[in-house]
């Protein structure tokens, strides 16, 4: 017989305002943010010209040499920031999709959003031979159109979680076939470029990717968090949450739109980095041991995962030999296997 002692703290003001937080969740988020920051600094120092931890901090504070300043602030910082923002967006987007679909496999990879963005990118790469910036735009359009299509096709007096996943799988298969076709039409150079993009890479990302992503997150993250309490109620089923006064369809639509935007933007910036959206919410949940969508922990976990994976791929294979998506893919698989073994030992599945 398990009992849980949840250590929650409530802050109340005399005016009748009150805020409640779970100590463990706060601790997990704090630790993740700290780890992410540290990993980011290490990542900035990693590369063909290694820079020490202290030097990176000094340069970030504006006290580095001109050479260091160029490498850190012009080359590596934007790349790391794109990684952070992409990871955070994917983590948050994944948590939203999983919570709305009430399915731990309801991630953008499974629902076909990533594949849709890939189609957009492949059209630009293969048919138009476009520039990197055009690929980004193509991917963004592809992701948004796919997201819209899934939502409209799944709509039938409201969007039912399971129907959403099923429709997503259907759309995903069609789009994957289109991608396969485009790949067979490409010449080998374009095909290689396409495969690198499809794996998900942070290589060569600069400030022009940072700003739009940052602006989008600045709008969407607060919007999503403001609706987190409704989402938490929706875990108990539509009837219960309706009875509690949640406008279920409205909250669901708003959060879905936000999740599609976050995922499409992240994918456009770095390619469909696999498994971050799938695993970040699951890992976060395991750490916080808290029911509910765990939005902020998932966001922090996504950022931590992506930056750490990028660092690992550079350490293991040398700078920019293998894109970060390879590492997240393998990590994702290993994580799921580990999950399987431990859950089985615990007799839970």
């Amino acid at each position: 017989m398990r009992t849980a002692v949840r250590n929650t703290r409530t802050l109340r003001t005399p005016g009748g305002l009150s805020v409640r937080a779970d100590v463990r969740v706060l601790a997990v988020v704090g630790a993740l943010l700290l780890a992410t920051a540290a990993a980011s600094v290490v990542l900035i120092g990693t590369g063909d010209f290694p820079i020490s931890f202290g030097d990176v901090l000094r340069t970030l504070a504006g006290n580095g040499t001109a050479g260091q300043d160029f490498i850190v602030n012009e080359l590596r910082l934007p790349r790391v920031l794109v990684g952070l923002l992409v990871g955070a967006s994917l983590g948050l987007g994944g948590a939203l999709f999983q919570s709305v679909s009430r399915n731990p496999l309801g991630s953008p990879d499974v629902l076909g959003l990533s594949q849709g963005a890939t189609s957009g990118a492949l059209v630009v790469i293969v048919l138009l031979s476009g520039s990197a910036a055009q690929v980004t735009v193509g991917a963004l359009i592809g992701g948004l159109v796919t997201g819209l299509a899934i939502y409209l096709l799944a709509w039938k007096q409201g969007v039912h979680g399971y129907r959403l996943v099923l429709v997503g799988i259907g759309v995903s298969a069609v789009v994957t076939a289109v991608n396969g076709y485009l790949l067979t039409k490409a010449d080998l150079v374009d095909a290689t470029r396409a495969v690198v993009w499809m794996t998900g890479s942070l290589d060569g990302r600069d400030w022009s990717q940072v700003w739009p992503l940052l602006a989008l997150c600045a709008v969407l993250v607060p919007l999503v968090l403001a609706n987190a309490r409704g989402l938490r109620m929706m875990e108990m089923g539509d009837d219960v949450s309706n009875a509690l006064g949640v406008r279920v369809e409205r909250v669901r639509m708003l959060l879905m739109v936000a999740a599609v935007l976050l995922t499409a933007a992240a994918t456009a910036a770095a390619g469909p980095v696999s498994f971050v959206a799938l695993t970040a919410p699951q890992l976060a949940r395991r750490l916080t041991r808290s029911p509910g969508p765990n939005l902020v922990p998932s966001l922090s976990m996504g950022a931590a995962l992506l930056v750490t994976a990028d660092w690992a791929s550079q350490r293991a294979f040398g700078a920019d030999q293998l894109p970060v998506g390879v590492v997240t893919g393998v990590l994702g698989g290993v994580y799921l296997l580990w999950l399987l073994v431990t859950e089985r030992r615990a007799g839970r599945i």
Partner: protein
Amino acid sequence: MTPEPEDGSDLSVTPESDESDESDSKRSTVNRLSAENVTLAYDQRVIAEQLSVEIPDNSFTVIVGPNACGKSTLLRALSRMLRPSQGRVLLDGQVIQSMPAKKVARTLGLLPQSSIAPDGITVGDLVGRGRYPHQGILRQWSAEDERVVQESMARTGVAELADRYVDELSGGQRQRVWIAMALAQQTPLLLLDEPTTYLDIQHQIDVLDLCAELHEEQGRTLVAVLHDLNHAARYATHLIALKGGRVVAEGAPNDIVTAELVEEVFGLRCQIIDDPETGTPLVVPAARKARVTTTS
């Protein structure tokens, strides 16, 4: 089983302050909750047409009827889970769909048939979620919330389970936890969809006793869908018998439960005797042989 509350009024409902004179003037019917000529349908399948039902204030209303007669559908319409394709459901004189969701949720609670306990949630947390309509982003957990949750759990006898995980509880315990959550919502009207399904006889009676207490001691209006006609007759103050999407009879059980009614609604030949415990009507189905000879 269910401990008496300190003075019986702790959990009572605080009247909505923002609906005083304005809604009084609008009120067209006497009762707070009613359905007017509603047509209820899923997709294209019509369950009930032109159905009108009044829920008497301060009653313990029970809706009975055979399978597929529309009783759960009616309850879903009354609780705004299902929008009528025609007609309207009125709460305090207003069309229920037009009211702010949280305001309805502070007036009318629902215990649905299917609800999902999130993975790894504790009893205390689940019951606490019933406070949602009383909360806001800057008012996440007031002292009042804490008190109401404690009392709701005490009331339903699950206080000592507060730190247990919901998915480890027995069916009877779990049902009481969900009822506690609905209680924590503090609504003057409470709708329950088959609250005794899957419970053993002792827990069925526990749940119904609890409903009767909520009704008698706190003056809440309760509406429940029940399968067991004898339970309905014993606990209800107002009975609504549905068949094929229309009301066959309604009124106090003593007035309306007759052998003819049971035969008409359920197609079952029976005798009605007085319940030796309560004097309410008790349905005794006719013996198999008696039924076989008359039908053939």
